[in-house]
């Protein structure tokens, strides 16, 4: 078998926040694959027309982009990377809406005055 070609990406592609990192490390340790990774794949469908699918995997496959962020490996295929760019992954233990969450704080840079408003 030939060695998989892997590109190493930076946290500009995806950054894992503290909460998510801790949670992922626990999950990977309990599965007995401390060197495993979180795969994020962008798929069509869902109510929004775009969904992120997450999976725990052994490691990167051929042509994957590997990002090490906050002590966790994240692998993304090149097509999905186009969509993921600049996202942050966080985890909330909230019972109602708990779980992993994605946000894209980089886009906020272009925003103007920025006084927040909540109805």
């Amino acid at each position, binding site marked *: 078998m030939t060695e998989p070609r892997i590109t190493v990406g930076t946290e500009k592609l995806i950054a894992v926040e503290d909460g998510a990192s801790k949670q992922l490390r626990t999950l990977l340790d309990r599965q007995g694959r401390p060197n495993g990774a979180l795969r994020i794949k962008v798929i069509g469908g869902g109510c929004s*027309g775009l969904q992120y699918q*997450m999976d*725990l995997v052994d490691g990167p496959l051929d042509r994957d982009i590997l990002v090490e962020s906050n002590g966790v490996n994240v692998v993304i295929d090149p097509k999905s990377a186009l969509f993921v760019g600049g996202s942050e992954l966080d985890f909330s233990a909230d019972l109602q809406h708990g*779980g992993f969450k994605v946000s894209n704080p980089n886009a906020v840079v272009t925003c*103007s005055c920025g006084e927040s408003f909540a109805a």
Partner: protein
Amino acid sequence: MAEPVIGIDLGTTYSAVGIVEAGFPILLADEGGERLTPSVVWFGPEGVKVGRAALREAPAGRLVRSAKRQMGVRFGEHVEGGLPLVGDTHGGVAFQTLEGPRTPVEVSSVLLGELKRIAEYRLEREVRKAVITVPAYFNNAQRESTKQAGEEAGLEVLRLVAEPTAAALAYGMNKLGESARVAVFDLGGGTFDVSILELRDGIFEVLATGGDTRLGGDDIDAVILDLVKQGAGMSGSALEDPEADGDRLIQEAERVKRELSTKDHVVFRVPFYDGAQSLEVEVSRADLESGAEPLLSRMERICREVLVDAGMEPDEVGAVVMVGGSSRVPAVQKLAEAVFQREPDCSQHPDEAVALGASIQAGIIAGTWREVLLLDVTPLSLGIETLGGLMNVLIPRNTTIPCKVGEMFTNARDGQDSMRVRVLQGERELARDNWELGKFDLSFRSAPRGKARVGVQLSLDENGILEVLARDVEGTGEDVIVRIESAAVDVNEEAVEQMVEESVEHAFEDMNARVFTEAQLKAEELLPAVRVALVEIGSILSEEEQEEIRLAERAVEHALTGSEANVLKRAVERLDQATEVLAARLVEKAIKEV
């Protein structure tokens, strides 16, 4: 935290345990990092050993394998294999070990106890509740025995789940449409099962099931051993004596089988097999496939029977999910493809899918499973147009839905009493390059420039419906709410991809245009104010200060005629700095006048 519920695949040859945690179904590994535990128990004079530890002991008379085959079986109806069987006190069977008879329930309860222990070790807490898988064909007695084994191991068995149902759960309901039918093809070490399930209202129902409890990967290993025998020109006995190097041969046959899934030729090699003599025979995939032909025919016949039982044609099956270790064998996959006339789905981990499905079922019962691993996100940014035709992003692309973001805006002119809210979607900096989702006018109490306060909030619910709320915060406090049904997010993948690509392609010119517009707005605000102030109180400044302001003013005017964002931005900054003293004096003057 709620009490954990674990999912267990109690297999004939291997078992595994898992749980749903943080939304992920995961299998829990033992101290050695192994997620699969061999379903074997060794009964020794000083206690029992399970799994890999049991395999390290001398097996004779003490090692019980495949106890699952004897679960709920009546004495007299049993099939011999492994340790001799005797009748137990309730008419069932028991394994005759050197430590006395051990019933299949006892053996299974030891296995389940070990899986419970592994779960408790990984979760660092007590586990008392479980979901356990059983073959779809298990009768009531067999199911009761499995439940009893769980209870003897200290587990409350909340549910017994059919193995194909578990496999289908692992495959994912989300991949199947409404009332979809799926075939699960499960070729394990010693058993073969095919089931056709129907998903109705989120619940899988087994329509038909069939199989052979004496057909599995072990039979393929036996084919390899036969080929080796022929190749080495050996008599059968040397290879069949289990007390000799039987285990070494079986392990090597297994390795050869696995490698033949990806290679055309593999050398079967057992060093120093016969004293100094090593055993080396090349086995080809073609040889294996022709040798396995009788096995494949049996599988094919079973598949066709199940289709008939389900009253279905092959093309009515929506997906063929392959599980079980030996579903990796290419010839087996080809067979499934031929029978069901569609490419089988091999996306599931063959050895782990059933346990993962059991974990998902456990998670459904415990309320921890919510398919949260599929995050709905906004494919493109959502925002509104602001002064100068700019896109002001409120909800950035890739934000998890549902979400809600609001921002405060103000009026651009004195006496302005209404504004048009244009809701945009896209990644470009200028409003005109994005897609307009809707627009409406909001009236607010007339106020001097920059004094009105209008809150605009965009919220996207779970169904992707966008709601735009605009409120005159200082004035009437009234809300205008506009709902944009699904149009907000109902865009096709190519359109999204194109938008993203274009935003990257035009990134520099777009950003230049935004910075220019923002600087232009600032200049248009600054220039008239500076001119007025110079006339009113310019005299208090030194000649040089006045000259610097005029130079800066001219630089801004010049830059406005060009299109270089950075030039304009720097000119505006220079003017801003040069007029600092002027601004300070104006403020002082204003204070005195009050």
